[in-house]
């Protein structure tokens, strides 16, 4: 049993990719700290918001990969009943979870910090729509793309989704704060 076996190399490679996305997202966050992090309740919202996007796109990719491998989803047809249901349910989940996170952040900042900031409910909803509007089609496209090119999307899409998801989420939050 070698220490530097294929598992070690795969985890190491995936982590390097993941770090890159996180670093870009973190730098955007640091540049716009005054616009994002200074909003009361944002630290309560941010971890859940970042977690949600990975969970939704990650499971979407995983379900699509299973369908592709089993031949239930055809690799040349990026539409159909199962794909439609997957896209719609992912959007619906993103909306419900974003709204719940907003309400939670509002309640905590109201009861614990004594600050009633209604914007904290609207920001994640709008940011959730914006981020998933980019992330879900991107996940769909690249899952099919990697599969068509002979790769296992299960091995690639995890770090891909977390890296791109972090960047889109932070940018969407910034845009939502600017719009609201």
């Amino acid at each position, binding site marked *: 049993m070698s220490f530097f076996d294929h598992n070690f190399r795969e985890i190491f490679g995936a*982590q390097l990719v993941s*770090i890159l996305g996180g670093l870009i997202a973190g730098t955007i966050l640091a540049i716009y700290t005054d616009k994002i992090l200074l909003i009361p309740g944002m630290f309560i919202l*941010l971890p859940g918001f970042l977690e949600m996007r*990975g969970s939704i796109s990650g499971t979407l990719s995983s379900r699509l990969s299973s*369908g592709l491998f*089993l031949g239930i989803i055809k690799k040349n047809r990026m539409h159909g009943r199962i794909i439609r249901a997957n896209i719609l349910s992912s959007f619906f989940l993103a909306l419900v979870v974003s709204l*719940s996170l907003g309400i939670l952040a509002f309640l905590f900042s109201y009861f614990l*910090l004594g600050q009633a900031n209604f914007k904290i409910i609207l920001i994640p909803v709008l940011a959730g729509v914006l981020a998933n509007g980019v992330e879900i089609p991107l996940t769909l496209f690249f899952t099919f793309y990697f599969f068509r090119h002979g790769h296992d999307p299960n091995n690639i899409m995890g770090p891909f989704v977390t890296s791109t998801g972090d960047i889109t989420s932070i940018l969407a939050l910034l845009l939502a704060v600017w719009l609201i």
Partner: protein
Amino acid sequence: MKLIYHKIHHHHLSHIRKHLRRSQKLPKKERHSLLHKIHQQHRLSHRTLLYVHEYGAHSNAFKTIIKESLKVLLLASLISSLGGIALEEIKSVFIVIVPLVILLPLLNDMLGDYGTIISSRISVMLHEGKLKRGIFQNKELGQLFVQIISIALFMAALSSVLAFGMSIFSHYPPQANIFLKIISLTMIDVVLIVALTFLVSLLLGIYLYKKGEDPNNFLIPITTAVADFGNMILLFFLVRVFFG
């Protein structure tokens, strides 16, 4: 010959369809055993049967996805956000340390990824019966722990260097003592959270497996949420210790 083959094939498929339709009306526990029987009788993989059963022509795929994902997603997001309350308390100190702000999404990602890897690998070991003889005798488990901890330590150091480098571009003072504090804080945080994730995955995985549940369905959302929550709480204490 072709006609006979088609007749047999059609007969075979109608049997599977009949079984799958019957299984949709059954409670979850009984459904698992029926799917296992179809798997043995018709030589179809568990994965295929489950996928056809959940998302096949007679199912409502939208409803299935919402029903199975919503609760876990809400719970995972809630746990992650609870950790954020601790950071909200030290916000004024935290946002001044630019490398830490850069590291926040990075640590969140990295620890979540380790949670996913540890959970899925432990689930596979449980399914393969590799943990039956005791966890301390299992070399594969020990190797997984050492590999993950080594990668985590290296990545924590690399992330700290990169985050510190990036922060200098935003006019953050390049002080050696701050750098040492950042790198120590990140490494302590990562090692402790990876160890916690490993322990939770192992104990919960064994418990769920003994209960007859598939650890795959529960371990990943729970361990990633525990890692997020633990990370926020630990960051709260470490920031207070190093920068308070």
